[in-house]
């Protein structure tokens, strides 16, 4: 399977602070990729590196087998929607489409106009007068109508109310179904990502903590509950992601490719949200209560 984005030892430093460190990644094509992590983890930095708005301090990144934004041909293949749904408030909806057509050689005018009609937007309306949800839909229309192979969206739904968020994701998924475009979107709304993403990257403190296909991640993580015991003494190949203990009981989130054989454990599947949150919590130091035990 070919990769749409490949990073090797990628790092970015702003003055003295590293925003991204030693990032090695491979994003397969045809996926809807969720990029999650706490604020300041490096999500926007990674996305800005991917579209060529930033240059790496270390390592390298290739997008569609070429350095990002190498030339007009490379630029045409990637659509980008920056944070805060960028539109020009003084320009009308129709102006945005005209501008898109002027700036993008592969502009799909019919697609753009159909989408605007389907959304019920008035072409004469100024972007500044649109609701946040409508502005996001306009920005998505401009990004999609250039017919990119890769669509990169930085927190596209963060500022939207739940209804506008759902409508935006419905529109985005229609685009994926129709065009088969690969999507990378960052968000900290894991419930939304759970519906739309089939690949997940967890970025924490400027490092990639977890990456993989969602099906695979869910199949290899299990929640174990049983009599209290030392997580050090587990079946080989079981990696403890998080652990919490009471006097009598241990609750462990483990990652393993093997079946759990120990009959002392009650084994349950883990939802994506719990899985991500477990990785976001401080790393287990071998034993001791770390998640779910605030004391």
């Amino acid at each position, binding site marked *: 399977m070919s990769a749409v984005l490949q990073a090797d030892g990628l790092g970015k430093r702003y003055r003295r602070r590293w925003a991204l460190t030693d990032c090695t990644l491979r994003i397969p094509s045809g996926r*809807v990729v969720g990029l999650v992590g706490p604020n300041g983890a490096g999500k926007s930095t990674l996305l800005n590196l991917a579209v060529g708005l930033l240059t790496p301090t270390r390592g390298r990144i290739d997008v569609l087998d070429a350095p990002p934004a190498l030339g007009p041909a490379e630029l045409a293949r990637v659509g980008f929607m920056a944070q805060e749904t960028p539109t020009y408030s003084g320009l009308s909806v129709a102006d945005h489409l005209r501008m898109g057509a002027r700036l993008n050689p592969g502009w799909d005018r019919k697609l753009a106009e159909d989408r605007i009609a389907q959304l019920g937007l008035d072409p004469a309306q100024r972007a500044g007068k649109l609701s946040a949800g409508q502005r996001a839909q306009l920005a998505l229309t401009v990004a999609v109508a250039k017919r990119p192979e890769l669509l990169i969206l930085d927190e596209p739904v963060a500022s939207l109310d739940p209804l506008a968020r*759902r409508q935006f*994701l*419905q*529109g*985005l*998924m*229609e685009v*994926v*179904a*129709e065009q088969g475009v690969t999507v990378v979107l960052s968000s900290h709304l894991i*419930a*939304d990502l*759970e*519906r*739309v*993403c*089939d690949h997940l990257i967890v970025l924490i403190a400027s490092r990639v903590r977890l990456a993989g296909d969602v099906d695979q991640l*869910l199949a290899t993580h299990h929640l174990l509950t049983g009599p209290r015991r030392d997580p050090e003494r587990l079946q080989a190949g079981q990696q403890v992601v998080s652990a919490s203990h009471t006097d009598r009981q241990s609750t462990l989130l483990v990652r393993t490719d093997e079946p759990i054989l120990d009959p002392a454990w009650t084994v349950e*599947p883990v*939802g994506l949200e719990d899985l991500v949150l477990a990785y976001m919590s401080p790393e287990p130091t071998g034993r001791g209560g770390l998640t779910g035990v605030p004391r």
Partner: protein
Amino acid sequence: MEWVLVIEFHLDTRSGVSPYRQIVDQVRRALRLGLLNEGDQLPTIKEVVGQLAINPNTVLKAYKELEHTGLVAPRPGVGTFVTATLRDGSLAAHGPLRRELVRWLAKARRAGLDEESIEALFRDAFRAGAEQDIA
């Protein structure tokens, strides 16, 4: 011909059941209840994702599984159509069985069983019955 949307899917994200499985189950249920019949068209992938805001691959996976079990078949460029039914002629018997079951449930409640105990009892009896069938 006027096109009619035959069924609409819904998603319970708190159930713990994967979205793909929920779609498969909803089609099977509709087939069993006679809501879907041979020749009916399933919603297109674009329609489903436009309605549920889910990944198209999830719908594709569900339709592939239904195809694999011989319940639906794709017509290239048109959509996915129902090719078999899960109605087994037992539909007529549903009414009387249901009435009997309601009576039985009332009896169980009078005997002091709560919902959990009733479910546990049903499962237990169901399992015992299945084991007898095998033996």
